[in-house]
């Protein structure tokens, strides 16, 4: 069964010759496009290192092939068979990767055992992906207490007290590249349990930009004008 390149799918590959327009009387075709996932661009200059670190772009797109058709008879409609072909392309670009000296993941929750399990999951994932773990520690919990009146009306001497406990867990990673960090953080965040919040503090390192290397007044003669 030959795949038919319709106009909708055609735009994906520039450079392909446009197919001859195929039209049927009752044609239904749809294309599901998954947006390509592009990591953020870099700041700062090129990274010179023995092994060139490159940014990898992930392009994921699906082609839904159209129905089998018979050109001979338009009237009767054959049972459509749909095949989904998944293309996964990992493109490697020369754009320099962001380098994070430290990535600190702080998770907050109301239940300590949930955070224990999440810590096990996060540390195991980091080890499997080859990330270097720094400190893993538990900051002290915060308790927010309220004292409210017990009764709807009067009875000021009788109160009821509530408290909200927030437990924390901090996982620090050292020497993470931009791509790896993005992959790891997305994996962790997609599997974040209900009722747990996360704060990620990233410390990116950059070279001094070119316009700060030399003062711009060097080329110009110094003028003895009072500053404005």
């Amino acid at each position, binding site marked *: 069964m030959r795949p038919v390149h319709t106009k909708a799918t055609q735009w994906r590959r520039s450079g392909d010759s446009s197919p001859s327009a195929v039209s049927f009387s009752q044609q239904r075709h749809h294309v599901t496009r998954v947006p390509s996932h592009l990591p953020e661009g870099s*700041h*700062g200059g090129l990274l010179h*290192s*023995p*092994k060139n*670190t*490159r*940014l*990898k772009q*992930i392009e994921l797109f699906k082609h839904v092939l159209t129905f089998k058709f018979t050109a001979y008879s338009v009237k009767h409609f054959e049972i459509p068979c749909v095949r989904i072909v998944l293309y996964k392309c*990992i493109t490697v670009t020369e754009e320099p*990767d962001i*380098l994070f*000296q430290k990535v600190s993941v702080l998770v907050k929750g109301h*239940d300590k055992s*949930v955070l224990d*399990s999440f810590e096990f*999951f996060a540390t*195991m*994932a980091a080890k*499997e*992906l*080859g990330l270097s773990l720094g400190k893993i520690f538990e900051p002290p919990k915060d308790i927010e207490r309220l004292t409210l009146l017990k009764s709807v009306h009067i009875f000021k001497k009788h109160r009821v007290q509530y408290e909200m406990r927030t437990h924390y867990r901090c996982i620090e990673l050292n*020497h*993470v*590249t*931009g*791509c*790896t960090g993005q*992959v*790891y*953080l997305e*994996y962790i*965040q997609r*599997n974040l*349990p*209900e*009722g*747990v*919040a*996360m*704060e*990620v*503090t*990233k*410390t*990116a*390192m*950059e*070279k*001094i*930009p070119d316009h*700060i*290397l030399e*003062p*711009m*007044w060097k080329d110009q003669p110094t003028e*003895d004008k*009072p*500053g404005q």
Partner: protein
Amino acid sequence: MASYSTKAFLILGRINISRSRLQNATNRATYVSVLSMNSPTGNRASCRYQVGVPRTEKMPVDQDWTAVYPSAAPFRPNAVPLPVRMGYPIKGGVAPDKKANLELIKIPNFLHLTPAAIKKHCEALKPFCTEWPLALDTDAKCDEHFPIKVQTTHFVSAGPSLRNPSARIVHLKVKLSSLNLDDHARKKMIKLVGSRYCKKTDILTITTDSCPLRKQNYDYAMYLLTVLYHESWKIEGWEAEKTVADMEEYSWENSPSQRNLLDTLTRMKVVEEEGGEEVRQQLLGQAEVQEYKDSVTRLKNEGENEDTLLQYKEAVKKVLKL
């Protein structure tokens, strides 16, 4: 009242069966398996649907657990072959078991993230990761090649809004020793930034939060750094009016201490009345005077320690030949 043969048939949609027959089955959109209705007493209330064997009985020990819980799902007692108990124990007993236990359903479970599942996921994610360059293994090397540090915070939480206004804040930290600054430029830079410079660690911290987006704040921080750098190299006309009170460090030349010392020394040598200036120059050239100068400078700049006071004492003794 008829007797039916045992038949299991799939019915999707509403079942409209007359009331004389299966009363239990009316108005149900389900898979219905009707078993034998041959009850001798003809009692309609005894027609019960038999519950099947739970899946846990049929699970082999070496099964692929990632197929049972491929993604996050609530706790299913019939799908988890563990004898878990959870909840407040009943009087004289233990916690309730897993059948119809709300506590087990409420709490988030990690059954979909077993070590086997994590390994599988990471195997699939590995191609998208990059390696850290081997040359940058210590912090010192990182600081040498990449002196600018940009710190940002990202927030993930559920609530009425996904946004967190604190996410726009950007901190830019750089050591002044890594920038190309001469002496005057460095002092001017420190005066310009004020409290953003930490003398102990020699780090300038620029915190921007005036723009609504993180990228804008980052661009603003880089712009501020550029402006500060170029402005500090500029020498303005009014900078010539810098007074002693504006100086960051103590310098001994043309200070009251120098004048006092030279006066004292000239008076000690008052016997030979020579030209004043040449005497002063000569005195300045002496080693003891230089030592005294160093000790006074150190005392003023570093503060009073035992070391500095000792050095001052020794220098004074030598100068005054005590």
